[in-house]
């Protein structure tokens, strides 16, 4: 986290001389980028981070959209793990009056949906004396849909380049899969059930996007 802060500070000072005065992005602009996401599961005792990418399409002055893919690897308890692949989209609504046409920080609220493939697993804690390889137990990937909402800030240090930080809460709908833990925080069973679980996860994302397509604004 400290390193990320130093990185963002250096970017701020580094690009302060490079700013051109043109408006950041016009409606119809589209870009691609990379992202790092951290995840904390409230009901599964799991925390981790992931890597991914996103595509962005700006629909209007205040409405941006993000189409993302994340692959996340979380540790659960002392011997378990959870792997999530998210493919989805979020619509980001700029709260400030000028929307995305500013050089200032752009606060936004967002909501969206995604599809999720989840694998959970654990390594059986065999305490046999012959030290044979430990047995790994995992489920087949479980498919579910999810919905998420949150808030964040976007910043365009130069035209076409967007730096974005956001926090979201995601709830999984459909099948729920999680690990059962004993009192010592060791996973011993994979549990699967149908239905919505409000024990979702908190996602924090830092992303960088480059707008490849940037239509010129029509003059009145």
């Amino acid at each position, binding site marked *: 986290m400290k390193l990320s802060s130093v990185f963002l500070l250096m970017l701020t000072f580094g690009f302060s001389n490079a700013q051109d005065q043109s408006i950041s992005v016009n409606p119809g602009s589209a870009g691609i980028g*990379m992202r790092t996401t951290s995840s904390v599961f409230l009901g599964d005792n799991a925390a981790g981070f*992931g890597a991914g990418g996103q595509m962005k399409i700006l629909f209007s002055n205040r409405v941006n959209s993000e189409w993302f893919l994340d692959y996340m690897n979380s540790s659960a308890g002392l011997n*378990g793990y959870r792997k999530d692949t998210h493919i989805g989209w979020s619509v980001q609504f700029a709260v400030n009056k000028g929307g995305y046409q500013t050089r200032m920080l752009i606060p936004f609220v967002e909501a969206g949906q995604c599809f999720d493939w989840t694998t959970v697993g654990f390594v059986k804690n065999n305490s046999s004396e012959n030290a044979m390889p430990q047995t790994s137990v995992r489920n087949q990937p479980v498919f579910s849909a999810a919905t998420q909402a949150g808030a964040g800030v976007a910043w365009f240090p*130069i035209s076409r380049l967007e730096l974005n930080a956001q926090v979201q809460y995601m709830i999984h709908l459909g099948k729920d899969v999680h690990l059962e833990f004993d009192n010592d925080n060791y996973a011993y069973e994979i549990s699967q059930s149908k239905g919505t679980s409000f024990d979702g996860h908190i996602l924090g994302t830092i992303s960088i996007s*480059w707008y490849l397509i940037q239509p010129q604004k029509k003059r009145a």
Partner: protein
Amino acid sequence: MKRILIFILLFISVNSIAQKKPGPGIRKGLLRAEGSLAYGSGNSSRYYLQGELEYLVHNRVGINGMTYINIGPAGNYPNSVHTVFSGPAFHFPMSKQMDVSLALQPGLSFVKDKGSIENSAVSEMVPNTSIMGGLAYYGSFFHLFFQMRANSAYTNDTAERQNLSDLRISFGLGWNLNLK
């Protein structure tokens, strides 16, 4: 004869590109590539064959991709950790020829080990998060570089969770070509 003609044509085309915007340094349209050895210092030290390709879409922003092929040493667990990173890199030129670069890049590691009596077998794809810093000195077609990458990753599907985080260091000679 054909080969000589092709060589002359290539030389002229490269030279004409170079003449349009003479002088070295980082700027929009620069294509740079590097290949070298990298050393990773972490829980277990590793050696990598490193490859990098970058194209500058702005005077200070490049689209960058890097590959690390784990080539040793043999005794590490997991035995094989190959990684790819991708994302924008930001450049802060200190002079016409000297450049400092920074990149916050996610990546993916492909981790494999057949296992042994003591260790469990593993075949896992692991996400990475990393910050890279670089220093380079540019000539017309070559540059000298020094890079450091702080990388965070771990693998779960093993008897004991393995921390793959490391600090990767590399230096060497790279190639660059101005395409605009």
